[in-house]
Structures are given as structure tokens and as C-alpha cells.
């Protein structure tokens, strides 16, 4: 590996992080199952009994892509941010800094593991949803592509948050104040076209709208915004995260003293 990429290190970080996940597999499994079921009871049954269809899709099925996105985004961020914050917090980061690894290899290990976990949760939610409603997927490959891209890009964002955070409050701050509202207002539970016109315009400034729209298209073939635009949005977001990470890599910001 002299000169080249230290794949062994990426693997070591990835497996170490995944082992933490597998140790608590029960928890990792049970909580998304319960929360998805609750969403179906509350949104699907209560609201769905009043709105029976959205653009030709039953309301119960309509919310599935949004539910998956909501959890996948939250999980990707929290796993990645915690993954890198924890060694900073307990001091084991010295080991990463003194090993022959560069920052991008560290990112690959942590982000790869966080994205895998989020993907796993996404699959669990999809499976749970299938117990409640009939889920059809028109474009399975596009669906998978959107899912993986979302997992990776938000894990990148989570990693940045974990590097930036200096305490547990800050670690929770961005997900709580920025990400959750954006995801809830991003059309998880409704179509943008159901909003008044001014709000429709405002909603187009919410990047999550593009993700959920594209993801929903891969299920039902209908979208709030063109699919190409959705892809562009997620690619742009990923590029932005990578640029920030590159800058952190160059400057050693908040990592090396």
C-alpha cells in the first residue's frame, strides 16, 4: 500500500463501526419498526381516512417514500456525526491521527459505515411499510440509486457536523434545528402541489423537496419537480459536502492542534 490508498485502514474503520452497530442490532431493528408502525397508525389510518388518494396513489402508500427518506436522512446524519464525534470526545482520535491514514480514508471508513447503517434502516422501514400497505416500485434501480446517494450525502453532512461539534448539544443542534424541519416540510407526508401557491414557491428552496420528489417518482412515476432536477440537487449537495471536507482535510480544522 506504500504511496497508494490505505485500503486496510478504511476496512478496519468500517468494520469497527459496523461491529458497534451489530452489537446493538436488536435496538437498531426494533426502533424503526415501531416508529414506522406508529406513523402508519397516525398518518395512514387517521389522516388517510380523510384523504384517500393523492394523485391516484392511496395515501398510505404515498407516504412510504417520504417515511423512508425521513429515517434514512436522520440515521445517516446521526450515525456519521456520532461516529467521528465519539473518538474526539473520548480521546481515541489520537490513534487515527498517528496512523498512516489520510483524512479522506478516515471519511471513507466512517461515512461508508454510517451510510450502510442508514441503508439497512431504510430497508427495514420499507419492509415494515409493506406490512401495512401495498408498496409498488416502478423504477427499482432508480429507487436504489436515490437511496444510496441520499445515505452517502447525508452521512457526509453528518461527518462534517461531528467534526465541527465541540459538545453533545452542538451535535444535536443541526439535525434538530435544520434537518428535521426541512425533511418534515419537504413533502414527506403531502404533495407540494397540495400547498397554496406562495408556499409552493418557498418549498422549492428546500433541497429535501427534490430528494423526496425524485425518490417518490421511482416508486409511483409521479414527481413534484422533474427527476433530472432531483438528481442534480443531490449531486450538487454531495459535491458541496465533499468540498467542505476537502477544505477540512487541507486545513486540519478542529482535528489537529
Amino acid at each position, binding site marked *: 500500500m506504500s504511496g497508494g490508498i490505505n485500503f*486496510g485502514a478504511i476496512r478496519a474503520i468500517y468494520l*469497527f463501526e459496523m461491529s458497534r452497530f451489530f452489537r446493538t442490532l436488536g435496538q437498531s431493528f426494533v426502533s424503526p419498526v415501531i416508529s414506522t408502525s406508529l406513523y402508519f397508525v397516525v398518518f395512514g389510518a387517521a389522516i388517510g381516512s380523510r384523504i384517500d388518494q393523492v394523485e391516484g396513489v392511496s395515501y398510505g402508500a404515498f407516504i412510504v417514500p417520504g417515511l423512508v427518506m425521513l429515517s434514512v436522512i436522520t440515521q445517516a446524519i446521526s450515525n456519521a456525526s456520532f461516529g467521528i464525534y465519539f473518538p474526539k470526545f473520548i480521546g481515541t482520535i489520537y490513534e487515527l491521527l498517528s*496512523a498512516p491514514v489520510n483524512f479522506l480514508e478516515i471519511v471513507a471508513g466512517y461515512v461508508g459505515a454510517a451510510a450502510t447503517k442508514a441503508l439497512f434502516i431504510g430497508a427495514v422501514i420499507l419492509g415494515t411499510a409493506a406490512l401495512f400497505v401495498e408498496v409498488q416500485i416502478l423504477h427499482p434501480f432508480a429507487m436504489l440509486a436515490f437511496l444510496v446517494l441520499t445515505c452517502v450525502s447525508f452521512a457526509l453532512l453528518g461527518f462534517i457536523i461531528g467534526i465541527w461539534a465541540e459538545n453533545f448539544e452542538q451535535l444535536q443542534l443541526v439535525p434538530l434545528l435544520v434537518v428535521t424541519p426541512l425533511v418534515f416540510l419537504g413533502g414527506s407526508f403531502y404533495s407540494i402541489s397540495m400547498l397554496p401557491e406562495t408556499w409552493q414557491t418557498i418549498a422549492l428552496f428546500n433541497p429535501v423537496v427534490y430528494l423526496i420528489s425524485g425518490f417518490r417518482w421511482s416508486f409511483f412515476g409521479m414527481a413534484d419537480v422533474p427527476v433530472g432536477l432531483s438528481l442534480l440537487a443531490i449531486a450538487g449537495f454531495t459535491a458541496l459536502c465533499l468540498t467542505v471536507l476537502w477544505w477540512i482535510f487541507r486545513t486540519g480544522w478542529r482535528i*489537529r492542534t
Partner: protein
Amino acid sequence: MAMVDITGLRKVYDDGFEALKGVDLSIHEGEILALLGPNGAGKTTLISAVCGIAVPTGGTIEVGGHDVLRDYRAARRLVGLVPQEVNLEPFEKVIRTVRFSRGLFGLPADEAKIEAILRKLSLWDKRDTPIRALSGGMKRRVLIAKALAHEPRVLFLDEPTAGVDVELRRDMWETVAELKADGVTIILTTHYIEEAEAIADRIGVISAGRILLVEDKASLMARLGRKTLRIDLAQPLAAIPGALSHHGLTLADDGATLVYSYDTGSTRSGIARLMADLTAEGLAVRDVSTAQDSLETIFVGLVNERQEGAA
């Protein structure tokens, strides 16, 4: 050959504090160097700069001929670090954290090697124990096991025996001696002169961000190992009697105390002779006490000595 070569190393922290003020230090292959210095001297900062944890503000560091910034992969592959703080993942099992350390260096898994390291450090029986269930001394040994997992040629031990009982301290020294026998270059920091004396080949003294000296243990101990004996007399003396002149005594407390300086390292301290001579002179002794110079006074002494030498 120099295994670690540090020239003009400066470190200014973000808050503007200059922790290292131009350090030159050359560490020979296969030696044990003890870095001795008071709290805040810059020992950990120096180690952090070599290991890639702190970015140097100025100067150069080479390990095995590799610049630690330009050629960091080659340099770091040679180096193992046992940090001062016991930083470990509490819920992880011993053997897994050691495997992880090896993996980080890109080395293939080698269970035989891991077993050998854990056995050497008496951790083999504890390999499946979560770290939080280990004693403090065991945790320190886990840190050493992790640092050895990639078979480093240079090992930094930052205060490995702080807060460790006497028995474990001896074990630690033994481990260090074994590593040296394997050809590993070892740099350890300590506050204890006795520790440096027990295991080092050379001793470096660092204070306030500067290396005051680096010397062979033997010659340094000869200078550091002095004690003073204070003898309180029943009757004050105006001057030291001629019969006692060869002992090199001085008078203190208006003649009420005789001060005798002796070498703890030499086989005969001369105290028995001195006492006999006092009795022969008919001087009544009220009390005696001995004191060793504190590390700080020794440092001050060293600085002054150096400045006088330079002048």
C-alpha cells in the same frame, strides 16, 4: 544513526502559547531516551508533533529518514504511541481494539502476532473483557498493546508509569527492556529521576519548551545524585575546626548547623567518617536531617550551569 531527528522544532498553539521554542533532538536507533521535565514543559507537545497529532509551527522532524509531514505514511508506519491519557473505548473488547490498531496501519490480520503481544503484556486472559471492566494498570497495558500492534521501530511512551503501583512499574520497565532487546527505539517521558535512572540510556531534560541538555545517564546521574546532610549542633561554632576541613563542610544558621553534601551514587557516602570525626572533636549533635534537591531546583541548577558555561 539517528532514528528520530528533530531540528528547530517550534509549536505555537492556537491561543498563541509557545509550547516548544526551538527544540533540537537526535535520538539514536535502539536507545532508550528518557525525557525528564516538570508539568507543562512541553513533553507531550513534542511527542504529539512527532506522531502527527500536533502540526509543528516551525522546524523539521524526520523518523527513519522520512519527513513526518511530507512523507507521513512512511514515517508513521515506524512509530507507535502510548498516550499520557488513558483513552480507550469503554465497551470494546481488548482483543478487538488491538486488532483495530493493526488494521489502521494497513497491515494484514495476524492473530499469532496479536496473541504474542497480549501474552507479553499479561492481557491474554483478558482478551474478551470489555475495557471498562479492566483495572487502571491493565488499561495502560492495553494502550501499550495497541501501540505495538503494528510492530513499530520507534515507541513513544508518554508517562507510562503515572499512577501505577510499584510492582506494575517494574513490569513496565521490564517490558521496555525487552522491547529494547528487540531493537526498538524508545522515548519515554517521566517526572521521576529514579525512573529515568532505572531504564534509560540517555536522559534529556526539557523545561518551558526548551531542551536543557541531553546526556548519557551515567554522567548525568553523577551530577544529579547529590544529597545534603544537615547537622544541628548543641553549641554554635564560629568556624569549622581544622580537623574537619577535609570533609568540605559549610556552616549555616549562624554556626548552629553544619551542611554536608554527598553523592548517593558512590559506594561510600563519608557520613560514618564525618560522625566519628565530630565525636572526636567533642562536638555534640542535637539532630540530623537529609534532603534531596527537588527536580525543580535541579532544573534551575542545570539552566544556570548552562548559562555560565555559555558565558
